[in-house]
């Protein structure tokens, strides 16, 4: 079974690829809006990418108020 740590690693990798950002500069507690310089729509785009990767479906409201990778990973992990 995938652990939270592996889920987190995959999320950081996918976010780095999606927004062409150096992976080594991303950490779990980063505020992804601030660190990646993205807006709420771009964050939803990332969510779609993560859904495809993890084969899950997350309603938009699951991301409401979430701005760090760690909470995002927990939300995804709970659906795996």
């Amino acid at each position, binding site marked *: 079974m995938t652990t939270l740590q592996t889920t987190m690693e995959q999320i950081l990798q996918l976010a780095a690829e999606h927004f062409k950002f150096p992976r080594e500069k991303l950490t779990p507690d980063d505020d992804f809006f*601030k660190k990646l310089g993205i807006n709420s729509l771009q964050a939803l785009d990332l969510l*779609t990418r993560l859904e495809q990767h993890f084969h899950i479906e997350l*309603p938009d409201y699951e991301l409401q108020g979430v701005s760090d990778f760690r909470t995002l990973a927990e939300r995804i992990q709970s659906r795996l």
Partner: protein
Amino acid sequence: MLDLRQYNSLGEALRAALERWPDETCLIETDRDRENVRMTYREFQHAALPLARALQDAGFKDGTRAAIIMTNQSKWLISAYAIFFCGGVLVPLDYKLTRAEQLHLLAHSKAEFLAVEYHLWRALTRAEGFKNLAMRVVLVSEAPAGADLAGARRWEEFRDRREPAFVPRSRKDQACIVYSSGTGGRPKGCVLTHENYLEQCVALTSLYPFWPGVRYLSILPTNHAIDFMVGFIGPFTCGAAVVHLRTLRPDYIRDAFTRYKITYMSLVPLVLKNLERGLRQRFEELPKARRKMLNALVAVNRALTLRRPKLLLSRALLRQVHAAFGGELRALFVGGAFTEPATLQFFYDLGILVGNGYGCTEAGTVITVNDFNPFRADTVGKPLPGIELRILNPDAEGIGEVAVRSNTVMSHYLDEPQMTAEAIVDGWLLTGDLGRVDATGHLRLFGRKKNMIVTEEGKNIYPEDIETAFEGLPLKEFCVFAANFLWPARAMVGEQLILVIHPEPGQTVTHELIAEISDRNRHLLNYKRVCGYFIWEHDFPLTASLKIKRGELAEQIRRSLDRSAVVPL
């Protein structure tokens, strides 16, 4: 459309619409690519009347207040109609607010009934302060079987076919209480009458008509004034259909245009810019020859539509671009925040009309909108029919505060006579926005007089509302300002919030304190965060009741500091 002058209330007008177009589709609800609901006006009525009956059985009377906290979906509109049918006052609340904010506004509005989606209700029941929530009836939609509803009832359980009694209202009666700010502090509940909405609807549909067969794509929250008007009242009183998309994912928005052959859609600048970015990227990826051809066609379209739009010609010239929008799009409406003229021009050159509007909840949605005769990307258009507009105390360049007089202007702020008296003076609503009207009657905005910011997502953020996040810090006092209020700038974009901290005498501002401020800032929603802080060594001027005199403090700061004093967070 219905002749709305014949009706006294939203309930009466909507009831007439349901009877006039029973076989027309009124609602389509889709979640990603799955269509959940498709109903006619007759089916809408069949869904709403049992709910109205249930409300009346539970003691709902004329003037009873009922709140809705739901995402964009069919049950939002059905619930609202049932409330209006029973003569109720609707309190539409933003589903994106925090639970504490929702509880605060529910208590302030004195709503007795609530229609809410299960996931939002579940979060509310777990919030601190939930036990103080006093509701007579809560209807929860889409709850899983066996879910604990904490005393609420299922929205879907009402099937009673006994006719509810229609409760008439007069035009001056309250229709809605819409909160324009004060979610964290002193709420501004705009009390809007049936007349406000009926008049606004007549004015808007005279410029942008709806008719049976028109499809409006709803992605802005329906609690927001714009979607409530153009995504509910407008289309329904004309026999048109509303398509609810239950996700804001850009992929699915694009898909909905083509799948449902959308006629109109309202959006905020952020979404419009995202559409622009997507189109520009697709144009970039075209082979060189095709790109050259496209540029030539855009130039031809621009030249032929200089004086006025020619929709059919543009559709023929730029067939593929229009096909990506479903081929039947007549206009996009953008509002809620400032849109850059370059973005508006980009779409106009493609033959896609963007009705750039300006308004506020207090004025009953829209004040001005572009009428395309001719298209002007640099303004927010002309006042709607029936709206008088004045520029107060204009400076040498003709720029002053925008004031509005119209029968679409709200009645008052709920339980706030003082705030009402400050906002509506001699019948004129003072908007707090700075603008100039040119010789052709177009309004151009130049900034704000009031201490607030508006994000690209159309969210109005008032500094007072986020100060609660910094309460209890070891400081003598602190205050949040809109940067452009402290240092006036003739700009409508890139607005930011600044935290002013005043330490105790002799206190050093430590790294730990700044880390604490940073941490609290991070816990705010991303668009509510302050972008920086500065230290102010003087006492804040206070009123007799110990409130900060913000205007005076801003003036003192302005005299000795400039923007370079701000330390980024």
